[in-house]
């Protein structure tokens, strides 16, 4: 019988964060009784990463509150091997670990995620903090005290959240951003300007359109020189300058890698049989845009896990992945939630909906047909639920607004118990 028509006996998952953990859970939940091995270099239980730059960084949440798997790996009857994957032999269906150990598989799930880029000082060595792992967040959190001036480099969510946490702890904070507004790359100029104004209102010293020409070490801190001669002295330096997919170990394996592991719409990798990839590391074929896309968001990883588990266990009846794009951020005690694709070229309306509580939203309209391509809600989770319910129906902006106006005006909800 061809190997592709029967469920695998041993499934090897490389990476034990959200993508790997949810795949393992979905496999067991769907009745997989075979052997489950997880390769994860970090000690301890699987933990959730979005809070690392939010509640965990402030100290409000403990490590235990980040646990992704109730009952832990043991409850899934998974063997966790604490090592890095060093190489893949796709033909021989085995991987080599950093300690030289070889582990065979029937099916392989690549869920190795991203590594944050680091800033480099003038001496050529890395400098400052990143927020990738819980250890990274621990190291940073211990520095957030005694009036330390926190300087975040980058205009994305990590920099914005780090500055928000610093201000929340009463520390002076500066953001150095190459672009004209915060979050311009992901949310566009209109919403970016709104968020930037919010940061300034909360006392963040926001240096936009700023280019760094030098980072000199200064004790445990740094002196940053900006183009034009401006100087910023940082006690604590945080890099939020993007991340790279963890694919170095796949070099020479035959697996197709192109800024991430390339997969089809069923999350299958190319170049070897029985290999899937998902989450931050995967560049999947997106049926919506008809293009390969790499998405670094929590829900993308969690939703793909359901697809990968299904396709592993039902090889004769595979399903495709259709992204329902959604992500969130927490800044200055407000939840910013985003659904859809906030295309920078879209027309953006920043609105306040009237009701018992006025609701601030941003609506993105794309193309000539009044199509609503994305919605951002500010501190209105229930509104976002309505947005996510409508979004797959490809509503017009008028349809989306009418639904949200009604909700903001005050419908009530009754619990079962």
């Amino acid at each position, binding site marked *: 019988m061809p190997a592709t028509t029967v469920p695998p006996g041993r499934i090897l998952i490389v990476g034990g964060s959200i993508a790997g953990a*949810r795949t393992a*859970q*979905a496999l067991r*939940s*769907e009745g997989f009784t075979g052997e489950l091995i997880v390769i994860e270099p970090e000690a301890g239980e699987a933990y*959730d990463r*979005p*809070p690392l730059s939010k509640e965990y960084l402030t100290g409000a949440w403990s490590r235990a*509150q980040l*646990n*992704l798997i*109730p009952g832990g790996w043991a409850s899934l009857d998974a063997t966790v091997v604490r090592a890095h994957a060093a190489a893949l032999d796709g033909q021989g269906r085995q991987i080599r670990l950093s300690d030289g150990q070889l582990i065979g598989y029937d099916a392989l799930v690549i869920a190795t995620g991203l590594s944050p880029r680091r800033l480099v000082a003038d001496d050529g060595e890395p400098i400052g903090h990143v927020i990738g792992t819980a250890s990274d967040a621990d190291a940073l959190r211990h520095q957030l005290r005694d009036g330390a001036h926190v300087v975040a480099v980058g205009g994305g969510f990590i920099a914005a959240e780090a500055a928000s946490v610093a201000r929340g702890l009463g520390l002076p904070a500066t953001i150095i951003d190459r672009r004209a507004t915060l979050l311009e790359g992901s949310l566009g100029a209109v919403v970016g300007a709104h968020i930037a104004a919010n940061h300034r209102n909360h006392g963040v010293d926001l240096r936009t359109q700023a280019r760094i020409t030098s980072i000199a070490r200064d004790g445990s801190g740094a002196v940053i020189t900006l183009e034009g001669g401006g100087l910023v002295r940082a006690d604590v330096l945080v890099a939020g300058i993007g991340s790279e997919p963890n694919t170095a170990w796949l070099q020479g394996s035959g697996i197709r890698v192109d800024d991430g592991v390339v997969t089809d719409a069923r999350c299958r990798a190319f170049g070897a049989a029985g290999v899937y990839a998902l989450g931050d590391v995967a560049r999947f074929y997106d049926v919506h845009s008809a293009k390969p896309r790499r998405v670094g968001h*929590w*829900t993308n990883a*969690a*939703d793909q896990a*359901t697809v990968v588990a299904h396709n592993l266990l039902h090889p004769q009846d595979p399903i495709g992945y259709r992204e*329902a794009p*959604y992500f*969130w951020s927490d800044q200055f005690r407000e*939840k910013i*939630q985003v659904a859809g694709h906030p295309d920078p070229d879209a027309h953006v309306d920043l609105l306040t909906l009237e009701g018992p*509580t006025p609701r601030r939203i941003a609506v993105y309209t794309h193309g000539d047909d009044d199509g609503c391509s994305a919605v951002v809600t500010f501190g*209105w*989770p*229930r509104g*976002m*639920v309505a947005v*996510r*319910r409508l979004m797959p129906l490809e509503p017009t902006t008028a349809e989306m607004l009418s639904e949200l106006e009604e909700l903001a005006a005050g419908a*009530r*909800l*009754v*619990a*079962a*118990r």
Partner: protein
Amino acid sequence: MRIEAKRHLCQSYGNCVAIDPEHLDLDDEGLVVVTRDSVADGELAAVQAGIRSCPVNALVLVEGE
């Protein structure tokens, strides 16, 4: 089986409602509410997917009617 929500853990992500609107919703404060708590046999996989979608494990499946 039925769904139980630990509302004190809820962080208003809304993932559970996106996956399982048959049983779950958010209230005006943005906290999860169980709108229908009983789980029929055929719904189990979808309900479990909704429960797994919560980053802070605020939903549990418990025995009984």
